[in-house]
């Protein structure tokens, strides 16, 4: 493995560690989303708060997790396509 590849893998490892360490430390609130916590904070500070507008379409939690996965898949899919094209193009140009 070249030095450059090793550094790339170490970066990946660091990112995984940054996400995994909190999981081992645990959470009193079950790792709720910060967006939701902020919304709850607004509701707590303003009794009787009702959002004045609601989404047209609100997927069930199951569907939402699927759609989040879809979002990541579309992005990752395109990135993979890009790197495939770029790498191949560079190889062919070199020959």
């Amino acid at each position, binding site marked *: 493995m070249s030095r450059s590849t090793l550094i790339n893998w170490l970066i990946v490892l660091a990112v995984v560690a940054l996400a995994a360490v909190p999981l081992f430390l645990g959470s009193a609130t079950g790792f709720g989303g910060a967006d939701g916590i902020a919304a709850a904070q607004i509701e707590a500070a303003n009794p009787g708060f009702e959002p004045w507008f609601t989404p047209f379409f609100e997927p069930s939690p199951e569907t939402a997790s699927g759609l989040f996965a879809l979002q990541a898949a579309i992005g990752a899919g395109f990135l993979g396509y*890009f790197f495939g094209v770029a790498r191949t193009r560079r190889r062919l140009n070199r020959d």
Partner: protein
Amino acid sequence: MHIAEGYLPPLHAVAWTVVAAPFVVHGARAVVRQVRDEPETKLLLGAAGAFSFVLSALKIPSVTGSSSHPTGTGLGAVLFRPPVMALLGTIVLMFQALLLAHGGITTLGANAFSMAIVGPWMAYGVYRLVKRLGGGLTPAVFLAASLADLATYCMTSVQLALAYPDPASGVLGSVVKFGSIFAITQIPLAVSEGLLTVLIVRLLVKVSPAELIRLGVLRRPVEA
């Protein structure tokens, strides 16, 4: 950083939309110009958008015990300048608002301002500053991406504080309150985003140096 649908008072929602709209329109024109003038960078532009698409879908646990997500806007801002990300970031937010009920249409202006405008400009400013101070590509990209991520969440805290000032300590107290929810949670995520952006740029230097030279990110051809 997604302010939920209907959580900003109408006046604030309209005001942030009015503030964000010109940036997004200007961004749309920047994207069109980029594609027309340098068609060979079209695919890379798509990749920058895709990076933001992936990263903003990943909710990652943080040391504060809550979860949040990176924004992925620093990469495109460094490569293509910030206006392009004003459009691409807003597209990401619209996808999430319409399909995932995450964020919202009434809060799109405010969310676009923090994620698609403040973040990318922060990234670009930091990138240029580090470069001017003689920093290399890696530290410049790392600081740009992670500080853009943090700036986005600080902006969200300010937006919420302006809408919901604390009865006792006012807007400033409220900034601290929302900042403690968002900004601190975001610190490890900002580091992750910086690292991932550095990783992508390292790979780009390897596979498409010609595009990076054309965009002014690399000076001279590098040996692979």
